[in-house]
C-alpha cells in the first residue's frame, strides 16, 4: 500500500500530474468523511478535502518517503480542519441556527450502516445519528482522536503521528471522548450500552 503511494508520489514529482489521480481517488472519501464528521457541513468538508489534496500536491517535494503517505495527508487535512473549525466557531456564534433556524442543506446525510437489518435499523440509525451529532459537539482535540480511532480504524501509533502527540495522550483523549459520548448516549440507548454500564465505575461516572 505504502509502496504504491510512494510510486505515485514519485511519478507526480517527475511532472506527471495524472499520477496524483489514484491518490486522490484512494483518499478522497477518507478525508471527506473525517472533515464532515469534524465540521458537520458537507460543503465545508468537500472544500477541506479538496484543499488538503491541493496543498499536498503543492508541497509534495517536502514529503519524506520514509514516512507513511496517508499519515502525512491526514496531518494536512487535520490542520486545515482545525483552522476551519476555528473560523466556523466565530461564524456559528452569529448564525441563524443559534436562533432556532433549521440546519438546511449543509447538514450531513443520514448515517449508513453496512449491516442494516429492518428490525434493528431504526434504533441503530437513530443511535448513529445521535452519535454523529454528539461527536460533532465534542471538543476538537477529543473529536479528532475519536473519529480517527473508531470511524477510520486508525491505530494509536498512527493517530499519535498524525496529531503529533504521544500515544498516552491519544489514549487519554479517547477515554475522555468516549466517556463524554457515553454520558450523552447511554440514557437514550441503554440496550447498546448495557455492557458498558456493568462496570460500577462507569455507572458511577454516568451518574456523576
Amino acid at each position, binding site marked *: 500500500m505504502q509502496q504504491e503511494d510512494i510510486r505515485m508520489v514519485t511519478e507526480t514529482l517527475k511532472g506527471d500530474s495524472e499520477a496524483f489521480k489514484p491518490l486522490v481517488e484512494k483518499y478522497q472519501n477518507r478525508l471527506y468523511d473525517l472533515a464532515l464528521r469534524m465540521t458537520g457541513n458537507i460543503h465545508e468538508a468537500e472544500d477541506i478535502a479538496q484543499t488538503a489534496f491541493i496543498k499536498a500536491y503543492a508541497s509534495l517535494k517536502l514529503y519524506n518517503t520514509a514516512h507513511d503517505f496517508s499519515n502525512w495527508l491526514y496531518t494536512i487535512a487535520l490542520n486545515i480542519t482545525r483552522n476551519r473549525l476555528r473560523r466556523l466557531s466565530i461564524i456559528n456564534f452569529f448564525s441563524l441556527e443559534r436562533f432556532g433556524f433549521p440546519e438546511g442543506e449543509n447538514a450531513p446525510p443520514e448515517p449508513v450502516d453496512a449491516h442494516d437489518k429492518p428490525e434493528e435499523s431504526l434504533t441503530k440509525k437513530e443511535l448513529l445519528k445521535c452519535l454523529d451529532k454528539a461527536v460533532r459537539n465534542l471538543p476538537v482535540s477529543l473529536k479528532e482522536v475519536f473519529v480517527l480511532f473508531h470511524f477510520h480504524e486508525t491505530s494509536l501509533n498512527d493517530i499519535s503521528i498524525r496529531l503529533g502527540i504521544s500515544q498516552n495522550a491519544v489514549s487519554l483523549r479517547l477515554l475522555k471522548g468516549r466517556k463524554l459520548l457515553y454520558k450523552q448516549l447511554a440514557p437514550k440507548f441503554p440496550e447498546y*450500552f448495557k455492557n458498558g454500564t456493568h462496570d460500577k465505575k462507569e455507572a458511577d461516572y454516568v451518574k456523576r
Partner: protein
Amino acid sequence: MLKDKENLEGVFNKICAQTKLLETRDLWPDIKNAVEKPKRQIGFLRQPLWSRTAVFAGLAVCAAVVVFFIPGASENIKNGIKKLFSINYSLQLRDSAEVLGGLLVTDAQAQEITINNMLLRIKVTSLDEKAVRIDVSIFKKQTDGSLKLLHNPAIVTLRGSPAEIQVSDEKEPVYRLKLTPREQKDLTAYKCALEPIKP
C-alpha cells in the same frame, strides 16, 4: 479504570463497526484544474507568490532610491503635491539692460528676482479653482546690505487672465508688471513682463 476503558472501547467499536465512510463526489477534476493552473501561467506569473511579492517590493525600493537621488527630485515631488505656477518674466530698470528669466512659484511660497539693487519677491496663492492672488514685494538694497520695502502691491486675478500691477519706486510708478498666471508646469505657458513706464 482499565476495565472502564476496555468496556467503553468495545461498546463504541461495536457501534461504529462497519459504518461506511461517507462518500464524496469525484474531487479529481477540480483538483486537477487547480494543480495544473500554475503550469499554464508563463514567465513571471509562474514564480511563487512570495517571489513575486519580493520582486515588486524590490522594484518599489529601487524606484524610491533612484528618485530621491535625483537632485531636487524630492523637492519636485513635494511641489507636485502643491499647486505649481511658473512665470516667464522680463525685467528692465530704467536704462539698464533687460533681464529675462523663468520662475517657478509654488503655491503660497515666495520666489525672488534680483536685478541691480532691486529685489522682487513674487508670491502666487491659489484662492480657489479659478482665482489666484499675486503679491509682489519690491525691495531696494541699501548700501549696508539691508533691504528696504518700497512697495507691496497685490492683485486677485483669474487663472489664464492677464493681470497688471503698477510697481513704484520711492517716488513714482516706474514699472508695470504684466503676468498671466496659469497652473501649468511648462514655463512657456506663463507670461509675465515688467515694462518700464515711460514718462
